[in-house]
């Protein structure tokens, strides 16, 4: 990626000193994915361990939770694929991100002034996006096997076992990413949570966390 990134949608509009960071449709989609993921996470944990089976009671009991888990899982995957359609260019990992990644220790220690400037998303956000995208695809494919195991012929039963292994692995990897994502979006990066609800960030926030994107916005360009 050369000097600037081309972003086709309407983020970056300045209004009363605040910048639109996420459009309404991006926010709706984020929360569709978030809520369906949380549903699948909680019900999935119920099926994962007998010590967490009580979690199914939060969603109407075991049979009800088992009925809706795959359907809401499909909604989650569709939502993530929509994100891919909208954010694929923004999420491409560039040289700017690799420089930022080298300095990630500063980010972890809240020494943000020592970090190289970046565009709309940082390396961690991009990594989260790709983990969730590939995780969602793997969860869907393996989930279909778990949904309809009897449709796998008996002599191909290794596919059933592969399905279980893949579903568990993908779930655990996305849970790890999810824990970090929720922590950063709510507790660590102040302003992040309101931005994904109301869509806006302050100019100071944009300048501190996404300097190149901020400068582009300030030059009067959208994106």
């Amino acid at each position: 990626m050369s000097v600037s990134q081309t972003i086709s949608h309407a983020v970056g509009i300045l209004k009363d000193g605040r910048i639109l960071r996420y459009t309404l449709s991006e926010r709706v989609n984020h929360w569709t994915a978030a809520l369906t993921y949380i549903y699948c996470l909680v019900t999935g944990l119920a099926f994962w361990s007998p010590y967490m089976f009580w979690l199914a009671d939060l969603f109407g009991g075991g049979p009800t939770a088992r009925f809706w888990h795959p359907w809401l899982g499909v909604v989650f995957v569709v939502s993530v694929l929509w994100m891919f359609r909208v954010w694929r260019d923004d999420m491409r990992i560039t040289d700017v991100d690799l420089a930022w990644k080298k300095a990630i220790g500063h980010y972890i220690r809240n020494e943000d002034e020592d970090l190289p400037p970046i565009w709309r998303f940082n390396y961690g956000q991009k990594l989260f996006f790709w983990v969730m995208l590939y995780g969602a695809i793997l969860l869907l494919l393996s989930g279909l096997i778990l949904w309809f195991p009897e449709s796998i012929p008996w002599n191909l039963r290794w596919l059933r076992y592969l399905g279980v292994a893949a579903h568990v692995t993908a779930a655990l990897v996305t849970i790890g990413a999810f824990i970090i994502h929720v922590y950063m979006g709510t507790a660590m990066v102040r302003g992040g949570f309101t931005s994904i609800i109301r869509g806006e960030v302050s100019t100071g926030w944009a300048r501190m966390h996404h300097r190149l994107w901020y400068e582009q916005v300030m030059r009067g360009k959208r994106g």
Partner: protein
Amino acid sequence: MSQAILQIRRISGHPGPVPGADVERAEQVCKLIDTTTCIGCKACEVACLEWNGYPFTDTTFNNTYQTMPDTTWKYWNLIRFNEYEREDGTLMLLMRKDQCMHCADPGCLAACPADGAIVQYHNGIVDFQQEHCIGCQYCVTGCPFNIPKFNSDTKKVFKCTLCADRVAVGLEPACIKSCPTGCLHFGTKDDMTILAETRAKQLREHYGFEKAGVYDPPGVGGTGVIYVLHDTTNPEAYGGLPRDPRIPWVVRLWKGPAKWIGNLAMFFGVVGVTLHYLRYGPKTVRDRNGRGDQP
């Protein structure tokens, strides 16, 4: 099927120890199926339907003596037929009564996540409790014999109960009751093993079946249904009886070490971000004068 008639030894998806698991009361029950005297009459299939209250279903004729290709959620007992050609060119019509094997170490129960949906009674019968079943079909994946079958209307899984309701009140299973040739026997595991070994010896010494023996696979801890086979070295010939059935290692891993590795990883993930917050706190945006700024 039936609850609280028999003492329970193991419970699926159960957190913590099983109440009453250590009682020593019942004998292990066992069904003995002598494939060498089965004539494939299907009386046991009919008796199974009648006792369990399921209607007769359409049969599939495919030029064999087998009623249908596979057991179904409401057809738990199926005589598997194989026209087997021996080395000398002669034919054997092999008949094997296929149903739940009631493993001592049941893969269905190991895989099941629902508390109490699968139980193993003290007499060794493995029984599905449909009122606790959540319809996830993990048992289908866990079973090494391809026995549990899913009813997609009720979202419940069914299989042979070894007539737990009859056995609990001192009756033999319906299939045993109906067998006209006496190829089916029912009793304690010890008695059935002795009977089976005696029959296998007879086959070896008097009938020329040198490889005759008893099928009681150790990979699943032995089974509550044992077979006498003309040839124990080739169980696959009997309608696909697995040579060395075991709970799939993926299922073992999934329900064993993976559980604890996964739980620890999730736990330390949450602990990790909490510690990070306590050590470094939030990222607050500061303005040019160094004052904290609300986002």
